[in-house]
């Protein structure tokens, strides 16, 4: 039984907990950044990523969540009626009022005897859901909980974030460590009131603080969360086989990793933003699924999310022996990324409802 050391900032469970199933989903449409640059007359060389994933006309946070959850359940190989909570983190819930989580729960066949709610904390709502699920299982309140981080992010036409605002998501079944594919060693979160990015009620697109989103926001919280996690755990970058950080573009996570002492080799597997964009609440969770698709038993993984507003969740993870037998029960994240259909900007405006038809 893991025991919390006195005075430690780390969150540790009373009962050993792990990820018993994981799953991702990424829509198949891709909008190249060069195409956005063409439309707005900007340089194709200065674009922040190669291309981003765009949801189809019949896709949204709920449908993405359902498929990711089904993949997670397939790997977990448990009866969905054993799940005691469904928490979905997103900033693009299809309803302003009415939970996405109840629809996802009904679709995957949980019982009605569950906790369910939607979470919003910009890009860290997914990891917040994971920490909540870890708490529920770790306290012994229930054996299994489902946490999702999903988004179909909104990028204002012509805004810098239009290049990266993408769609995708991941789901994790959190359960007892004995049957887990990944053991959760501890978590740690660092949160302040930092207004770097927001969307007011009834507004269609978010606003952001330009360069203010960098140093005082993303880097400050990411670095503090990761460094504190390692300091409190007595680890350093070399102790981790993989690391996955929130990835609003290609550059930020690389800079943050370098400063923390991580190599490109450690972060490349989970760094998907260059080819799928920033999936917001799905960003670091989807990166983690790509890592789990190839990680070996014993590998240690540091995951750090970042949500504007602002805060970071750090998770210290270790892969177990069970990974190899369950990994193939659902499509890999790479298979979803490979399922690629390039669209032009006009099609993008139609798919995203930017092209007004009424």
């Amino acid at each position, binding site marked *: 039984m893991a025991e919390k050391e006195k005075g430690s900032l780390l969150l540790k469970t009373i009962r050993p907990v792990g990820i018993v199933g994981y799953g991702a989903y990424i829509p198949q449409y891709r909008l190249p950044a060069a195409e956005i640059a063409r439309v707005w007359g900007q340089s194709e060389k200065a674009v922040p990523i190669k291309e981003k994933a765009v949801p*189809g*006309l019949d896709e949204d946070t709920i449908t993405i969540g*359902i498929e990711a959850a089904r993949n997670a359940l397939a790997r977990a190989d448990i009866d969905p009626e054993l799940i005691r909570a469904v928490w979905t983190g997103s900033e693009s819930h299809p309803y302003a009022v009415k939970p996405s989580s109840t*629809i996802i729960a009904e679709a995957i066949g949980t019982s009605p005897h569950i906790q369910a709610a939607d979470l919003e904390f910009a890009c860290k709502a997914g990891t917040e859901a994971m920490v909540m699920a870890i708490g529920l299982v770790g306290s012994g309140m229930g054996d299994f909980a489902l946490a999702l981080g999903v988004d179909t992010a909104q990028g204002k036409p012509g805004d810098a974030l239009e290049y990266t605002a993408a769609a995708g998501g991941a789901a994790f079944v959190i359960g007892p460590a004995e049957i887990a594919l990944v053991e959760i060693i501890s978590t740690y979160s660092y949160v302040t009131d930092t207004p770097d990015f927001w969307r007011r009620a009834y507004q269609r697109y978010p606003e952001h603080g330009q360069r203010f989103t960098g140093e005082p926001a993303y880097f400050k919280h990411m670095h503090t969360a990761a460094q504190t996690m390692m300091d409190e755990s007595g680890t350093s970058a070399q102790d981790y086989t993989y690391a996955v950080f929130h990835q609003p573009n290609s550059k930020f996570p690389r800079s943050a990793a370098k400063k923390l002492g991580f190599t490109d080799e450690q972060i490349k597997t989970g760094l998907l933003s260059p080819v799928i964009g920033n999936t917001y609440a799905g960003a670091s969770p989807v990166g983690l699924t790509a890592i789990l698709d190839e990680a070996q038993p014993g590998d240690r993984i540091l995951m750090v999310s970042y949500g504007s507003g602002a805060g970071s969740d750090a998770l210290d993870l270790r892969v177990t022996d069970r990974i190899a037998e369950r990994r193939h029960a659902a499509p890999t994240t790479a298979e979803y990324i490979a399922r690629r259909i390039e669209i032009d900007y006009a099609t993008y405006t139609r798919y995203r409802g930017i092209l007004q*038809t009424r």
Partner: protein
Amino acid sequence: MEIPRHWRLQKQRYGLVGEICPHCSAKIFPARDVCPECGGEAKEPFRFSGKGSIYSYTVMNNAPVGFERGLPYTIALVKLDEGPTVTAQLTDLGANKVEIGMPVQMVTRRIKEDGDERGMLIYGYKFRPVMG
């Protein structure tokens, strides 16, 4: 607004939940009150695997209200591996050429909104080419 009628069919639509006949074990979709195979009473829920193949398909160029946004779209009769046939849209077709006999798998997607942008969202089964 058609809230109640869509609400009561959510399980069937979201997860392709039909029935298995307690008398003759026939798998039934959509659910009904009397088993079409043996005439017995049928009410035991059964979740279909979502695997099937295309029995026939057509491309819609005119749509009823609520479906115009997706035009043109492909609708198929999908023969489920467990026996029954369902009518459903095909999605994520991309460059795939649709053919009768093609294997497909169920996904849950947004079907339409009830009325306009203020109405409830209706989700349900569609099918796509089997991945991989």
